[in-house]
């Protein structure tokens, strides 16, 4: 799905410069400034419009530039390349070949984004505008149909809006997948003098960044979602709770709110409907648990972000004791489209119980990491091999980890699983917020479980005992495993404790914290046993169990290890097996990562 491109009247072409966090960190601002200068020099300022956009997802190849309407897509652009693009493409009408995307499979240069295998299988609803509009210009959003959904909703009854939402089958994208329409209905039925709708933009899952991309690239879609939701449930006040780690998302959200206020889309009597609606932005302060609804509410109220048992549910007693509905960014970004195109239209995409699309943050040992949006039910294989370009360095796929610290992994034997809520839950890996971390044979699954548990253990609020101390004890056992100090009894204890923490914890954080452990034990018990019984880490990750010796049977004598060693601990001569000097070795694993043949034990 491609958005309607709006080019300024009187201009012929448009150059889009991506300024999402990824590209911005690689001098996108300088590129943009150079572009304006060069266009001016070339006398093209009158006919070519420049625009910067939010992230369009292909961060791996950033910074990127697109020339519209042709769709010419330039990758890895440096500030010095700009002059050539202006000269050759915009003036000369020919693409700059060397900056076009190189398809690694066909070895061909690809001219437009439409032809790229990365974008091709994607279907963009949530990210429909990301990378194509200027996130700091409300008119750009309006030009592509923005705020039409809100206008339509406000002309309907609350129940009609809720019914439409129910018909869409949209489920909360924050992780639990609760049907949004039903959630609205509950909040709608609560009677109170004041209700709230909150946008949860506290994207805490390490490895997921779709919410950030939406707020950075298309903040108005979230505001519009809130306006529609607020109307449906009868809320006149709203908060957007943004992670403090996302300064750009915060800034752009503030700008968007300001612009919407000036247009009369926020404030008193919005769109002349008689309905009032205001949005405030709250900046989180670094606590993963505040993604949990009741903890988020506590945090907004200025308290320690500790969850409260439910019931009472936020729909009955939420922020400041008032009925409150909380939706996540990705959910909200879907809503304007559900309104304009209708619930049935939305429900036509996806699987039986999982409608619409899902944005995945593809990362890890994959060729193209970035944001991808695909229809619900797209097989994992397609996401990894087609969109993601396969595993990095031609290594072997081991597992995909979904759902971050709350999730689990999908091993190679389930590589073809269609990705929807039910299938993932069945495999013990949840949809979560959409983090999709790809691992290969150099990833240790025990270490992976330990990584997530370290995270949840650190992020536990400490209120309930199973989470506060249970995760600590689990982490201690896991650490013993990675040091070769654990027994099989310890492994059994780990699993029973994991079950107790899952059953016994107060909130979602604790209830799901054991998932990475349970899931890896389920699919990779052999790796655990190797650590315990053989005192070996098959993936060569757990440093205490690595000998740092070259296995002469596997060594292909290529010398990659020697050149990667930062400590000059490896000696290698052509056609000879490399030697590691254990005195000098600092156990940094650079050699292991460099070796394509897994020949270092």
């Amino acid at each position: 799905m491609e958005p309607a491109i709006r080019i300024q009247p009187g201009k012929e072409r448009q150059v889009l410069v991506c300024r999402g966090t990824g590209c911005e960190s690689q001098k996108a601002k300088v590129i943009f400034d150079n572009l304006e200068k060069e266009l001016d020099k070339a006398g093209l300022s009158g006919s070519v419009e420049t625009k910067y956009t939010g992230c369009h997802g292909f961060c791996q190849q950033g910074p990127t530039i697109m020339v519209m309407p042709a769709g010419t897509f330039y990758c890895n652009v440096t500030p010095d390349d700009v002059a050539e693009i202006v000269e050759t493409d915009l003036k000369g009408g020919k693409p700059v070949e060397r900056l076009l995307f190189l398809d690694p499979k066909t070895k061909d240069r690809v001219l437009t984004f439409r032809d790229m295998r990365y974008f091709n299988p994607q279907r963009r609803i949530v990210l429909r505008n990301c990378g194509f509009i200027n996130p700091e210009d409300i008119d750009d959003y309006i030009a592509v149909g923005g705020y039409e959904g809100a206008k339509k909703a406000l002309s309907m009854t609350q129940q009609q809006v809720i019914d439409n939402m129910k018909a869409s089958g949209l489920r909360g994208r924050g992780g639990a997948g609760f049907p949004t329409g039903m959630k609205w209905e509950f909040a709608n039925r609560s009677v109170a003098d004041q209700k709230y709708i909150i946008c949860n933009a506290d994207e805490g899952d390490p490895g997921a960044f779709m919410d950030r991309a939406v707020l950075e690239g298309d903040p108005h879609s979230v505001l519009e979602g809130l306006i529609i939701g607020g109307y449906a449930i009868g809320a006149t006040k709203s908060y957007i709770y943004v992670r403090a780690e996302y300064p750009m998302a915060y800034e752009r959200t503030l700008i968007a709110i300001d612009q919407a206020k000036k247009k009369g889309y926020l404030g008193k009597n919005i769109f002349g409907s008689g309905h009032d609606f205001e949005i405030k932005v709250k900046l989180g302060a670094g606590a993963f648990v505040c993604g949990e609804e009741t903890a988020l509410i506590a945090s907004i109220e200025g308290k320690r972000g500790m969850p409260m048992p439910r019931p009472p549910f936020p729909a009955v007693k939420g922020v400041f004791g008032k009925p409150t509905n909380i939706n996540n960014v990705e959910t909200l970004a879907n809503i304007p489209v559900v309104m304009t195109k209708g619930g049935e239209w939305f429900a036509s995409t996806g699987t039986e119980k999982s409608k619409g699309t899902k944005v995945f943050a593809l990362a890890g040992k994959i060729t193209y990491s970035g944001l991808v949006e695909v229809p619900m039910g797209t097989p994992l294989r397609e996401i990894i091999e087609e969109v993601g370009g396969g595993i990095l360095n031609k290594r072997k796929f081991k597992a995909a980890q979904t759902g971050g610290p709350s999730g689990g992994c999908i091993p190679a034997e389930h590589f073809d699983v269609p990705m929807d809520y039910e299938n993932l839950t069945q495999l013990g890996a949840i949809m979560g917020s959409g983090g999709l971390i790809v691992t290969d044979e150099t990833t240790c699954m025990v270490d992976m479980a330990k990584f997530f548990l370290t995270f949840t253990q650190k992020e536990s609020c400490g209120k309930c005992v199973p989470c506060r101390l249970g995760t600590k004890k689990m982490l201690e056992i896991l650490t013993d495993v990675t040091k070769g100090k654990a027994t099989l009894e310890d492994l059994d204890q780990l699993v029973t404790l994991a079950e107790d923490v899952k059953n016994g914890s107060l909130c979602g954080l604790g209830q799901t914290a054991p998932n990475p452990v349970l899931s890896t034990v389920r699919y990779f018990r052999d790796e655990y046993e190797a650590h315990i019984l053989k005192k070996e880490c098959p993936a060569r990750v757990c440093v205490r169990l690595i000998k740092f010796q070259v296995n002469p049977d596997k060594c292909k004598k290529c010398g990659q290890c020697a050149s990667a060693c930062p400590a000059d601990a490896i000696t290698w001569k052509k056609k000879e097996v490399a030697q590691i000097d254990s005195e000098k070795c600092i156990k940094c694993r650079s050699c292991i990562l460099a070796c394509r043949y897994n020949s270092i034990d």
Partner: protein
Amino acid sequence: MKEKLQEIFSNHHGTRDALIPVLQDIQGEFGYLPPEAMDAAARFCRMSPVEVYGVATFYAQFKFDPVGRNIIMVCQGTACHVMGGARILEEVASQLQVAPGQTTKDGRFTLETVACIGACALAPAMFVNKDTHGRMKPEKVAEILNGAGN
């Protein structure tokens, strides 16, 4: 300090729900939360100082000691972990001779970790103040640190 606090308070409504934004502004001004400022924030938000302390220590963002002139953040998110973020952290820590959360003796650097900044596609990533350095390698650390302000 009194005037600066007054200025911060004048931008907020003196109720409990303003506490976290007030603390964020205080940290923005002073780099950390001085005890006197927490005490003043407590009065402003009409809470007891210990509750302010309880809230502030709950959130990872808040610091209780003065920070260095440059903040180095090394991402330890999933993608960065898988791509070797721990190794980058080790390298930075060993070059600066401080552990995460600490400030170098000369006050030039404070080292911190972050549990994902959403730059997963650039993993492993580290940040010097507001600058992002993606696809980090241990050998690039020295150059980046040298490039930071004094």
